């Protein structure tokens, strides 16, 4: 079992290492290497999942010793880690296979595939890490990979900016993450996650420090999992190739934040303040993302905002102390969001445009894409019996039973979001597949096999996973026991909300964009509440201005003193030189004067003595 646990991060890492040395434009070997890496990781994860759920694989060796603190290359693959690893491996494999066809003819395919492998390895590292710094390695390497992959498309002028934004915003959150780790390291005296948690549970760390550590770590989580106010990078990140969006939005990167909170659950559970902050951020994020998704014109942007919104559900579940519900939704979301992005990629591939306005009437022309995407959208909206319904229902039921106001906030926001989600899912479905074809590309058709097979596999999962999850006792045991469904009043409310959402969207019919119903709000939503402008005015521009000011002070102030000393000295030297360059008569006079002065001084001392 230990070998399989090590293979989770190592197999993709080796694939990445090989991939970086392949010729840049080879596609087939690069795709094979990348897919093999993901496949080995996936198989290892499946082996771990089928093993005993209570069996935690632990292994490690020392990486370095810094004073009293030891960094260990320590892994711990517990029951939850194995499940998440399956999702990561599966999505990575689907993305590798799909990309080989989606990016055919790309001149830089080999590094691209290697970067996906590295991305996968980094996420797997986060999943199995048993040391806070090892976790941080995976955590930040993911940020770097997202940067590289989002900027992959050379023809998109906005891609480099979006890439920088993705890395920087998450890195700003990581300031908090590093400080949080420092707090834990200092207070617990170890970097080992297991020992830290034991220390927290045993009350070895004061409540104030726990809250401080939890809040600092949350900053990093907000960055990675795109929670308000660090969410703005995610919608822009769709400038990357569509398979990359699937990778980032489904199983890696954004999932990491949620996973880490679940992994360090006892720490967060010990701090009501942290949970309250999380609940508020989750509720805002849920509604914010859903509103923006309603008006987005770009089909990938609809999906990107929906990810923001769905992540709000997961963090909401964490905030009410139910990491089980959060992980359940994380897994089902991984399946249906990867599916949706890959479907969107198929549509974009066919109509050569990202805009919803250029699609329409694709139901007959692209049947595979239509049916798979229908399943994906149903899961996103939360229609029974597909996966999204079960996981979302569980979160709402948990919120209903939760103590304190956090539960009620999450419940209200969650129910509202159900309606909005149903609305924008229906809008996307109608606008893409019904009515007349509005695009210019000739004869849109279903994609080739390498692209459609991942769709089919993922759609089966997106459809069946929820039911499987609810019915399988082994699965429940892995998530931490308990029931995964509590069908009751809430189910009726969810269904009712879905029906209302779908009906209002249907009102506009397929020919007219239902987003027109939003009236003046449409532009506000479509621009993401103008948050980018706010961020620009409050953060980016002040920092830039500060940088310019500091540079000016450094050049003219600090260095000015140095240069001034230099020029001052030469100036004085010139003056002294001028005095001394007067010619013989004055030298003679000066010498005489000097002699006289010394004589007087000598006389004076003699007299005084």
């Amino acid at each position: 079992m230990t070998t399989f646990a090590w293979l989770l991060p190592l197999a993709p890492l080796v694939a990445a290492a090989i991939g970086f040395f392949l010729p840049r434009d080879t596609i087939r070997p690069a795709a094979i290497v990348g897919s093999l890496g993901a496949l080995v990781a996936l198989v290892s994860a499946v082996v771990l999942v089928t093993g005993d759920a209570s069996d935690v694989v632990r292994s490690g060796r020392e990486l370095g010793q810094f004073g009293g603190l030891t960094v260990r290359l320590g892994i711990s693959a517990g029951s939850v880690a194995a499940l998440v690893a399956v999702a990561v491996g599966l999505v990575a494999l689907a993305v590798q296979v799909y990309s080989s066809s989606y990016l055919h003819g790309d001149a830089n395919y080999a590094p691209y595939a290697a970067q996906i492998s590295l991305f996968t390895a980094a996420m797997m590292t986060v999943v199995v890490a048993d040391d806070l710094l090892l976790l941080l390695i995976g955590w930040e390497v993911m940020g770097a990979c997202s940067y590289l992959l989002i900027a992959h498309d050379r023809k998109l002028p906005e891609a480099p900016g979006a890439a920088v934004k993705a890395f920087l915003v998450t890195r700003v959150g990581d300031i908090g993450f590093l400080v949080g780790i420092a707090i834990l390291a200092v207070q617990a005296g170890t970097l080992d996650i297991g020992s830290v948690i034991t220390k927290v549970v045993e009350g070895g760390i004061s409540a104030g420090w726990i809250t401080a550590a939890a809040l600092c770590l949350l900053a990093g989580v907000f960055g990675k999992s795109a929670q308000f106010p660090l969410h703005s990078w995610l919608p822009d990140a769709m400038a990357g190739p569509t398979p990359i969006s699937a990778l980032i939005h489904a199983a890696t990167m954004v999932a990491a934040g949620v996973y880490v909170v679940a992994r360090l659950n006892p720490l967060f559970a010990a701090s009501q303040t942290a949970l309250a902050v999380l609940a508020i951020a989750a509720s805002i994020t849920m509604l914010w993302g859903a509103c923006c998704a309603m008006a987005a014109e770009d089909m990938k942007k609809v999906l990107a905002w929906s990810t923001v919104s769905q992540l709000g559900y997961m963090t909401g579940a964490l905030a009410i102390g139910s990491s089980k519900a959060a992980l359940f939704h994380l897994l089902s979301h991984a399946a249906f969001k990867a599916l949706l992005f890959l479907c969107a990629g198929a549509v974009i591939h066919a109509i050569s445009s990202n805009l919803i306005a250029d699609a329409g009437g694709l139901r007959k022309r692209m049947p595979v894409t239509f049916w798979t995407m229908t399943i994906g959208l149903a899961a996103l909206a939360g229609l029974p019996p597909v996966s999204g319904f079960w996981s979302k229902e569980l979160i709402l039921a948990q919120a209903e039973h939760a103590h304190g106001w956090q539960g009620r906030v999450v419940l209200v926001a969650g129910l509202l979001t159900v309606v909005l989600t149903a609305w924008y899912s229906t809008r996307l479905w109608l606008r893409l597949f019904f009515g007349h074809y509005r695009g210019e590309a000739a004869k849109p058709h279903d994609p080739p096999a390498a692209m459609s097979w991942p769709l089919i596999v993922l759609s089966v999962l997106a459809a069946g996973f929820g039911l499987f999850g609810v019915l399988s006792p082994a699965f429940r045991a892995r998530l931490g026991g308990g029931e995964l469904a509590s069908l009751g009043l809430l189910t009726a409310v969810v269904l009712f909300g879905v029906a209302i959402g779908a009906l209002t969207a249907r009102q506009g019919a397929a020919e007219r964009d239902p987003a027109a119903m939003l009236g003046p709000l449409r532009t506000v939503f479509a621009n993401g509440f103008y948050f980018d402008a706010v961020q620009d005015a409050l953060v980016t521009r002040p920092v830039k201005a500060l940088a310019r000011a500091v540079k000016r002070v450094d050049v003219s102030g600090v260095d000015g003193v140095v240069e001034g000393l230099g020029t001052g000295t030469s100036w004085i030297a010139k003056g002294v030189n001028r005095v001394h360059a007067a010619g013989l008569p004055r030298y003679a006079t000066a010498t005489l004067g000097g002699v006289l002065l010394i004589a007087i001084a000598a006389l004076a001392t003699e007299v005084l003595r």
Partner: protein
Amino acid sequence: MIMIALLVVSALGALAAFLPAQFARFVSTGLAALAFGLSLAMYATGAGFWHEYDKPWVPGLNLRFHLGVDGISWPLIVLTTLLTLLCCGYSLWKTPDSRLIGLLLAMQTGIVGAFLALDLVLFFVFFEVILLPMYAVIAGWGGPAKRAAARKFVLYTLFGSMLLLLGVYLVVDQTGSADLAAPKGTATMAAFVFLALGFAVKAPLWPLHTWLPDAHSEAPTVGSVMLAGVLLKLGTYGLIRVAIPVAPEAAAKAAPVLGGLAVAAILIGGLVCLAQTELKRLIAYSSVGHMGFVLLGIATMSATGLQAALIGNLAHGLITGLLFFLVGAIKDRTHTGELSQLGGLRDSSPWLAGILGFAALASLGLPGLAGFWGEAFAVIAAAQRGWWLGAALAAVGGALAAAYLLRMLRKVTHGSSPPRLTGPAGYELAAWVPLAVLTIAVGLAPLLITDVTGPAVDALVEAIQR
């Protein structure tokens, strides 16, 4: 004896420049390779000095020719001989001038001597040997404003040396010993301040840093590599080996000031880089921020902080050395370093862009690469010391580093592309690859360094807390 051999080989390499020009540079480079081998051969394990050589030097003044190598100095000696060898190899093809190679080896003699010296006066002598070769390298092979930059470098660092000399005098006067192997540790605050100021100029610590950007941006590529890669390390090494052990009590009192200035250096270095418009100057200024992390680690005076400082020192030498090689390669091809005129490197030269991206990620402290450990543990060590604000601000400096390096990458690698540039030459790869490989190796297995430095650091901390 192996230490003497290393110094003699280095010095012979410098003297070989006077041989006939056809083979002088090959002889020198060969001797540089031999020196690198010798430095590797010095490896041993454990606390205390692995090799020691102690003979009277000027008996009348009670000066001793005392050399020694331990876990603190050995990694820096290897870094020095490695970078010198790489620079010599690079110069063989790039600027085939035996005088430049001879100067590089003369510099190596001084630097290695300073790292080996266990007598304070001997240390000072070696410390000063470096100054003139570096001056000559900048003034002889530098850019358009080389004379002014070289003059500023030499005057500023001489100013630092004078302070250092005062400190040396005070230490010998107060403690009656110039021994560094087992310093008495009774020097006063005045001695510490002079020593620390002298080293702070070299390191450089804000606000004594302004010689550095000018020197770097005018120096030739190999000059910049040596300057950033090893010369700056003399400042931090001096603090660890000399200033703190001879006056631990004074150091403990001054530590918060040192830490505060280090954090200021991190933030100010980062902000200035964010507004920088010239590539080489940007990398030069980034050293101010990175050395700030090293100095923060030293200021904590704890085992964690000193370990962080030592690994950070080494990582900075590798990464910034690589960055200066790459910047040199870019400027050779595009004939400009202005960020506004560069762009599209990933289309015009994918290899160069790839390695530059790698080096930039390493420089911004990406976990898993060498630069990360020093920075992360400097932050943790500051937190251990109770300097929470300092730790948080240093972490902000990490984000600033990401901001300016990504801005740099965006301007240099993305955007519209110029015509295709020539690919990397063999001699360039020979200089880059070892540095890149070591960056990954130290990043993935920091124990390569921490196991070497650990016992010595523990012994040092024990000594200064006594």
